[in-house]
């Protein structure tokens, strides 16, 4: 409870006594590159392979002659849009981005760089964390979109090129009973998860105390807590919106 209260106060502090808006613009662009562009590679690999595996395993389980093979494309599509692209991608990003944010801020804390900013009369939490938060909210939905496309492409490649399904079966499944809201649902999840990952990791890093060992612990806590928060939020959003 104490930590939750401290976390809420930390979030409020990001928006109080901010610096001039122009200060944040270049920082947000830098963070977009760091959080977004640098994560494309890992997101692409994970999404493509999970899409491929999910397609093959679905096809493997659909043994009944009464179920058309196009169902594989249908399941891969819904699994990708509803769960794989937003949730799995964000879990991967919690590991990559979350640990990097917590480690970076933790190191800045123990080497007194954050104190140096505070002494100058600058709101250090706002200056350091707000650009990360805004950048993550901007780029996570883009990464999730990329992930969605690549996951479906992975599923297509794995099933069609290996002869499990025909091009026609897979594409028919993809197009069948498509619900546009599911895409918005995925993007809403991406925004919520991006906020959780960035804020939790920043909180862990910002309040690091001690030395190098504690920076490591902060990074671990950032990833663990972010993953738990993602899974809990995933359930709540699904319950509320579906």
């Amino acid at each position: 409870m104490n930590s939750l209260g401290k976390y809420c106060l930390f979030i409020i502090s990001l928006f109080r006594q901010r610096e001039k808006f122009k200060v944040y613009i270049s920082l947000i662009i830098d963070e977009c590159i760091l959080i977004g562009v640098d994560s494309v590679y890992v997101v692409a690999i994970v999404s493509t392979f999970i899409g491929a595996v999910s397609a093959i395993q679905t096809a493997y389980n659909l043994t009944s002659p009464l179920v058309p093979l196009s169902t594989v494309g249908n399941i891969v599509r819904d699994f990708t849009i509803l769960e794989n692209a937003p949730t799995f991608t964000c879990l991967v990003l919690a590991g990559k981005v979350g640990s990097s944010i917590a480690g970076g801020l933790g190191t800045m804390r123990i080497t007194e760089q954050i104190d140096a900013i505070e002494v100058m009369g600058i709101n250090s939490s706002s200056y350091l964390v707000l650009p990360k938060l805004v950048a993550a909210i901007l780029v996570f939905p883009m990464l999730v979109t990329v992930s969605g496309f690549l996951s479906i492409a992975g599923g297509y490649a794995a099933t069609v090129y290996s002869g499990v399904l025909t091009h026609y079966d897979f594409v028919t499944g993809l197009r069948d009973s498509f619900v546009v809201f599911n895409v918005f649902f995925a993007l809403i999840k991406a925004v919520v998860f991006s906020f959780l990952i960035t804020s939790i990791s920043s909180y862990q890093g910002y309040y690091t105390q001690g030395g190098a060992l504690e920076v490591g612990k902060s990074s671990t806590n950032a990833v663990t807590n972010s993953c738990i928060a993602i899974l809990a939020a995933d359930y709540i959003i699904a319950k509320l919106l579906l």
Partner: protein
Amino acid sequence: MIEVNQLNKTFRDKKILTNISVSFESGKTNLIIGASGTGKSVLLKCIVGLIKPETGKILYNNREFLSADNETLKTIRREMGMLFQGGALFDFKTVHENVMFPLHMLSDMSKTEKMDRVNFCLKRVGLEQASNLYPSQISGGMQKRVGIARAIVMNPRYLFCDEPNSGLDPLTAIKIDDLIQEITHEYNTTTIIVTHDMNSVVSIGENIAFVHQGEIVWKGNKDNILQTQSTPLQEFMFANKLIRDSIKK
């Protein structure tokens, strides 16, 4: 001038600072000395506002700091410059960008004026050739000098130095001390230095406060410190047997 009145600080039921009252004069190098763990760094952090004490007052030229409104607090903070123990330079910025940082964030100067000011400060600390290097590419002494350049770039009224000599060889330590003293006299800043280096004490200690177990037990200057009758201060100063024996002789 900075005045500290009846300052108290406790960490988890452990009293760190007890009724600290001391004034630091402008245009002088004011030293807070004491052994490790006696509370001198906590005192400095209370003075600059990084740690909030339970009770007490801190006056910056008669402006109350601890209960100040946001605007006054911002004004006072922008009159401060601080050199941290480890330099606290931003790893992701070059030397030039580090020194530019306060100007970039807090000043309304034009780009040319900012560049001139940064170049002047780097020249003042003798680092104009290192401006494009990153902190990891320069020595500890150079990092301290960059820290000084960053601290003075906004023309501070108050300069704070936390262990400016730690981790430096004696020759570089003397250079850093001299630089801080020169800047103090040149710009008439109120400079507070936390140190346990006896070389600093005897060379630049124009106003000294000795902290022992969270209390100030002695005040004076470099001219009368060696004649002190305070036992804790004597133990601190003459901890080195070689120095103790040579003083006795």
